[in-house]
């Protein structure tokens, strides 16, 4: 789908999903388009031992049991709540699952402080109401209600950002599986079709903003997504996402593995420093997640492509690392300065390689920002 800036997973992998559906002879729950095993295969990629005729790429990187638990939850009576630090791939997993199960990952409600009950149930088309009165025609169903009616997966992003009354509206949807429309005299209940479920995501750093009630908690199965700390998996994720990005921007640029290593190691260093820091002032505001890492690389690639030599260098990477991670002046800048001079500089002297250039890029940006 080259005419979309970002195609949803079901469009992006439409061909792969079609093929999987055609070869899937395992039992499928409800109205699911794929069986649980095939969904796992779609998310985690196929191996030779799976005996498929074609390659299925891995799309989400993480523990196999997390994906299995998530799929099984959706096949059961409960909603799925993916909880974890920002940038751990919760929403991406939710999108992949929705795409694989119901070929529609766009039935999304974004939880914010301004989300109201209407956003998850229904609202009214005022002109239609004036013209024809309240009827099913003049009703605007929410994405969740659409999912209920079609027996597909609805998504609720950042559940804990929405206020508790909005969260409570989900309770009846998840337990009774219907929404009543008291404004109508007839046809006033929308029942969920088999296959309906909700995938919600919540940021564990937001705990305490709008805590979930126990009633809602018990209607969700919580699956915690950990931060990826395994260097190998992280390198895989960054490479995968970067390739996707390059394709999207139609940029032909090579990301040398040594440069990727510089990025991974610098993030590992900064994470260790954040873990050891005593107070908030001593650690970067950024969560230093894998997504953040991809952001740094993306920034460097775009910068090199449009303003640079059309070649990704360690200098531009150093520059975008400082630029992306320094959110607070002077605290974050001071930490980056300390990192560059305390860790990168000696390493450059010891190991050489790309580190001195990386240091120079970082230094320049700090000088500019200060």
């Amino acid at each position, binding site marked *: 789908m080259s005419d979309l800036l970002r195609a949803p997973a079901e469009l992006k992998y439409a061909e792969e999903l079609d093929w999987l559906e055609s070869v899937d002879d395992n039992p499928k729950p409800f109205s699911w388009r794929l069986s*649980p*095993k095939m969904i*796992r295969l779609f998310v985690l990629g196929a*191996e030779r*031992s799976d005996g498929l005729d074609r390659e299925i790429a891995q799309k989400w990187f993480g523990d*196999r*049991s997390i994906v*299995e*638990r998530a*799929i*099984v*939850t959706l*096949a*059961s*009576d*409960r909603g799925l709540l993916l*909880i974890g630090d920002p940038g751990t791939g919760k929403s991406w997993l939710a999108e992949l699952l929705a795409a694989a199960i119901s070929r529609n990952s766009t039935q999304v409600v974004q939880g914010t402080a301004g989300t109201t009950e209407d956003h998850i149930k229904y609202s009214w088309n005022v002109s239609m109401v004036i013209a024809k009165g309240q009827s099913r025609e003049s009703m605007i169903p929410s994405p969740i209600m659409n999912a209920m009616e079609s027996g597909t997966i609805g998504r609720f992003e950042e559940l804990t950002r929405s206020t508790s009354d909005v969260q409570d509206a989900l309770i009846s949807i998840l337990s009774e599986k219907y929404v009543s429309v008291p404004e109508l005299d007839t046809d006033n209940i929308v029942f969920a079709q088999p296959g309906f479920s909700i995938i919600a995501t*919540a940021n*564990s750093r937001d*705990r305490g903003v709008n805590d*979930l009630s*126990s009633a809602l*908690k*018990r209607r969700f*199965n*919580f*699956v*915690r997504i950990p931060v990826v700390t395994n260097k190998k998996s992280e390198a895989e994720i960054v490479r995968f996402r970067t390739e996707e990005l390059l394709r999207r921007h139609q940029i032909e640029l090579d990301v040398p593995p040594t440069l990727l290593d510089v990025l991974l190691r610098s993030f590992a260093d900064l994470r260790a420093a954040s873990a050891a820091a005593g107070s908030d002032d001593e650690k970067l505001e950024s969560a230093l997640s894998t997504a953040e890492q991809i952001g740094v690389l993306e920034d460097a690639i775009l910068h090199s492509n449009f303003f640079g030599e059309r070649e990704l260098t360690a200098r531009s990477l150093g520059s975008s690392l400082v630029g992306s991670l320094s959110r607070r002046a002077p605290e974050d800048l001071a930490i980056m300065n300390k990192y560059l001079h305390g860790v990168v500089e000696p390493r450059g002297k010891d190991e050489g390689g790309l580190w001195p250039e990386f240091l120079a890029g970082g230094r320049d940006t700090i000088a500019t920002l200060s």
Partner: protein
Amino acid sequence: MSFESLRTQLQQAATTFADGPGALEGILLGMVDDVDRAVSEPLEIFPVCHHSPASAVAMARRLRDKQPKVIYLELCEDMAPLLTELRNCRLPVAVQAFSSEVDGFPAEWAPLSVVAPITEASAEYQAIAYALDTPGVELVLVDRSSDHVFQWQPPETRPADEDALHGDAVGVEIGDLRPRFAELEEYLLHHGKVRHWSEWWHQYVELPLGDSDHDTYRQVMFLIGSLFRRLAPGDPRRVRVDEDRERYMWTRMREHLAVSGADPADCLYVCGAFHAASRVAEFGVDGSDGFVISPRSATVWQHGLIPSSHAAIEAQFGLAAGSVSIAATEWAKNLRRTRVTPCQLAGQAGGKKARKPAALPGPGPELAAADQLSGFLRRSPVLDRLDEAELLGWSVEIVRAARRNGYLASTADAIAVFETSILLAGMRDRARPTPYDFQDAAVTCIEKDVVPGRRDVGRLVEIMMGGDRIGQVGYDALPPLARDVHDRLAPLDLKLQQRGVQRALLDIASRPELEPCSNLLWMLRYLLPRGAARPIMGERKLGERPIQESWDLALGTHQRALIELGYEGVSVEQVVEQRLRRSAYDPQATTASVLEAVEDAVRYLHSPRLAGDLGTRALEVLAGERTVDGAPEVLRRSRRLLAYYRTNEPVLPQWIESFVRTGYAHYCTLLPTAFTDEEAGVDQVAAMLGFLFSMESLALSLGCDRTQLELAVAQSHPEEPAKVALLWAARVHLGRLSRAELRVRCDDLLGNPLSLPSYPRYLSGFVHALDPVPSLVDFVVETMSNAFAHLPDPLLLPWLPTLISTLRSRGAQFVPLLIREAGRLFPGRLPALDEWVPPWLDQPAPLAARTTSGTGLALLAAHPATCDAVADLLGCGGSWQAAPGGAVLLSRHPDTAVALEALLAT
């Protein structure tokens, strides 16, 4: 039996899958060769894997069928005598070989410890129980001795985990079967879709082998052993040790067969599957005899049983948490399902009620083993049927456990867990959820964003699946020392064998029979780790008798420590004595540490003989010491000991007299050097002076000479102000310097702007001098008052912290003294302060001394001319004469005497 058809098939497979009949063929056919060789060995080899219920069931079944006369077991041969004691213990326990005195190994390895944990669900326990309880069956341990464990493999330095029940012992286990390189294990786990090794084993070996017959079991186990061995030999050093062990075991078995004349057909050799696939030349009854067993070192080994636990075994051998517990649960279930009667030692503590050992039916007929492997490898895995009742039971149980631990779990969750377990198992290609699937399901459905209590759901499932079982060594299997401790603490009427903390209250005043218990508890406190015996109330000082004490005792929890004490001696007293002697005769021992040992000997053992021995040692150490670092400690301890002996003994022991005499001479000799030495601190010099002055009378009575001290002080020429002040104080004490002179010197210091900055340091010296010369306390108050009065703030303030820290560190001694003196000198009330003049400023000028010697009067009478001339000069007339004696006056004026007599008479 022939594996020809299998060979042909594998050869074809190798040609098909590999590019040519190369390495793959070698490995595949080699594996069949290994199996062939192990199967055709006349001495039956029984391959096992540790903590494998399938092995245990197969073993139980085989023992009944074959009823061997001799069982060779892969376990350190020196541990054999202990195995019969297993019946007195609640499993799991570990057989331990322990040595604290190494001879032949580097001293830093000490103490050496080897443990072999034994659980009920293991094949080795089946073999042991069968052999020990069946008459006429001999159990022979054939693996290398504990000594060889260290000869062949130096201990790795591992951080000791305090919670681990095994301490930092080296673990040995029967049937270690695991891929030797990480990539293979990772590959197996990845493709087996399991999380850890225990789960892989459970799913791909345990379950398929569950109900298989003996031949299949053996051949499959041989094949797995051979597979791991051929695919990944691993670290060459480890392989060499393994091969040496195999040579060792086969050499021992052949020796035993030759001596006993047993028929190999009546014997069973139980070893890990890894060793069954051995290719050493010594393998087999007919193997070569080239291996020479090296002699053991001179290290003396002690053996005993210590408690173990599932968690400790998992930690020691790198197994997944909960896997040993799950194996135990599986074992119990397999027994019910297969109706195999397990072997159990008669009277096994903690086991099921001992049945009367039924006479074994005769051995089954030996059938020629056929190739079971081809069929097994081709058969698709048999899926275990869903056991709905069991899963429902688990689901309900976990919800109850979660509720108890603060989760808001309900019946709805039990249903969800049940459903999710089945779905998860389905996704993982199994019909019946394994405990690991169930754990995942429970975590998914019950765990929310926070863990409300101490344990999370994953841990609760582990506990539910059998939990951590902690073994206990029964009373009869304890070493004599530990039994003695329990016997002697019996009057406390506590169940000290049980785990957990128990409070003991000892009212010794009303129950004097408890005094020996108190003595023992103090010794245990000295010997055992913290927490095993902890006094809550009561203390033991030199010469004090206990009245009331209360203790927190956790001897059951620290059973291993108590058992290890048993390796050092037969009674606690003996161990204490050994420890005290060891610390006193340590090459690094100082006088202070030896005196501490003397104190401990008196306090804990009340043994004048030992105290005397150690005291003599203190004397030796003191004579050899050239530094005065420990002087304050020596002073404190020798004072305490002296005070104790003076009040409790009719005469002072010989050693302490010698100690005082030697100490007096020793410190006199070192005093001038210490005064000038920069290394020696002022408190150390003060302590030396304290020793010299406070023990002076005793030392002089024992023949020392005071001149020695006077000379030593005279030779001392310190330069540091604090030490100078100390010297002045010493000279005051010796009468070489008067107080007036001392005051003048101090006033000079205050008056001289050049010496003023060093005044606080002099003052520090005086404060330290309070210890050797306490009579100077009024002077110290005076100098301190002067300091506060005259020193400028920039000098006074920086010195105050030093003063405070000195007073704090010596607070118990000096502060009450100083406060009492200050209270005496300073006015008690505010109004009095206005008129108050410090006593040192208020002293009247000294009156001229009036001599009243009798010689003047006599001179006057003898030479009256001077007196007459003065009388003339002053105009006094008359004559005078020398006064008569008192008696003459009395007779001349009797009235006074009469009046006094009347007064006294009334």
